[in-house]
């Protein structure tokens, strides 16, 4: 990373704000690995629905569990889902996209039709099918979100890789006897990496939203593991007594997703200055 990139990055408002919010979320998750005010699943009925105080910064829920601790540990959950679900999409999607681009012909047609087809099953629908059989759980929601990410990355990879394959330096590499795998590794992947990084950031945000929705429905993360989506589900039944319980987890989700989206937008502008000028 050149120093001019860093200078430009530091002057880019949405990149800076996005990076700050994302670092804050990652920091919260990292901190919660070492420390949280209370164990997040610790039940303390005498202290249920307590108002925010020095002992409980954001108060407690209907079982007396500390809200701040649950929010901190919930960040871990969102990050795990995001990283693995995007990892599945990135790994398989980039593989199929590169394959389609390198082989063209019927392989490309097959990969692209399969990608079209997978779009018929949004993450929530896949998750519903999987949950109906295997029961609810974190793994099922990660798999469902991951499957949905595969065609997203396959399409982007194929489009960007096709552009690289038509460049003169690739032609030169081919005439010098390099095979498709070598060209993909040496030329295609390094040239499309920036687009993949941007998409990974945005898909990460989408994964957090999808996991929250699944956990809200009770199909995702299961107790006692705290998750922002399930906190919202539990808060809904206490809305008349403790309305703020339905606010905090939502704010955590919005700030995380906003941070990642801004980071993605910023990275896109910084990595593709031509595009940035036209926006």
């Amino acid at each position: 990373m050149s120093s001019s990139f860093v200078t430009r990055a530091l002057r880019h408002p949405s990149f800076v704000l996005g990076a700050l919010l994302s670092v804050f979320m990652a920091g919260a998750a990292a901190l919660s690995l070492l420390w949280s005010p209370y164990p997040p699943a610790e039940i303390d009925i005498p202290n249920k629905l307590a108002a925010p105080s020095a002992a409980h910064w954001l108060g407690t829920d209907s079982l007396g569990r500390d809200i701040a601790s649950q929010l901190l540990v919930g960040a871990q959950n969102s990050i795990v889902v995001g990283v693995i679900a995007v990892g599945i999409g990135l790994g398989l999607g980039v593989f199929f996209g590169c394959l389609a681009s390198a082989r063209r012909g019927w392989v490309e047609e097959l990969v692209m039709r399969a990608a079209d087809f997978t779009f018929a099953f949004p993450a929530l629908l896949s998750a519903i099918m999987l949950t109906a059989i295997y029961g609810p759980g974190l793994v099922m929601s990660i798999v469902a979100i991951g499957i949905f990410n595969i065609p997203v990355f396959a399409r982007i990879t194929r489009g960007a890789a096709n552009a690289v394959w038509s460049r003169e330096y690739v032609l030169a590499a081919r005439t010098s006897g390099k095979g498709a795998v070598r060209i993909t590794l040496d030329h295609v992947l390094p040239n499309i990496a920036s687009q993949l990084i941007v998409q990974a950031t945005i898909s990460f945000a989408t994964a957090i939203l999808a996991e929250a929705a699944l956990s809200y429905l009770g199909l995702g993360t299961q107790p006692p593991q705290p998750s922002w989506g399930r906190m919202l589900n539990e808060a809904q039944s206490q809305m008349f007594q403790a309305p703020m319980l339905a606010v905090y987890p939502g704010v955590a989700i919005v700030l995380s997703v906003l941070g990642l989206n801004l980071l993605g937008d910023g990275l896109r502008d910084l990595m593709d200055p031509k595009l940035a000028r036209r926006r």
Partner: protein
Amino acid sequence: MSVFLLRRFATFLLTLLVASVVVFAVLELLPGNAAEIILGDTATPESLAALNTKLGLDRPVLTRYADWMAGLAQGRTANSISYDTPTAELIAERLRVTLPLALIAMALTTVLALALGVYAASRHNGIGDVGVMAASQIGIAIPNFWFAILLILLFAVKLQWVSAGGFPGWTEDDGGGLWEGLQALILPAIALALVQAAILARVTRSAVLEVMREDFVRTARAKGLTRRQALWRHVLRNAMIPVLTVMGLQFANLITGTIVVENVFVLPGVGRLIFQAISNRDLVVVRDVVMLLAAVVVIVNFVVDVLYALIDPRLRHGG
């Protein structure tokens, strides 16, 4: 044109067919036996055998798939395990809530997004533009079910204007009426529309800006058209292609959004039906509703593709 339509129609049918195979395979083949899942670990061999016979699971796989397909084609479906009613009847009844909800949400989305997008583009880099873009960036980050909860907090808990959920029905016989029904759907529709509109407004803005830079718009302005006239006569029509693409893609989100938001507002729609079916382990309902929703997504994408061809002649020749 007709070659394009035929080819696209063939792909559409093939996609539907593959979708049906996947739904059937996932729900009927992979786990071993549906009866075991429905009855759980405590099932006796006799009860398993009885349910197997009732569900027709003792017949060969291909026969079951063919029966299911033939049934769907004729509008004849299997009975739900928990309700003992044909799933088609259950779904039709629930669609009376889901369909109006989705349509109101889509209409709200379109009106909001086009208005905001065109406004932002016409104030490019001005305060209005920056404001709309910042608001839409936040809108995209808000989960629709959380926004739904916030709406309930404000309008049901704080102001007490509406009830916190439920659906009174469309007719007086059900205890409701047209107005009461619409009232119950308005908050859920707003919750669904906000996020979608945030995304679509951004797409509309950049599409309008893109077209405004084209030579034919400059020519139109040079001929004496005002900015506003050029916008309405030339820019909007051409900017519609990316907007339509995204609307097509968003329809899938709208469908899944409906499942979640119906559960927030306890609306007796298709989303709630499938959710209850999961809790009841009613795999027949899960299978048919998932198939319906996947089919809706595929159909909408097909319609969007055909609409492109009508709007942009270049696409139908490109195939």
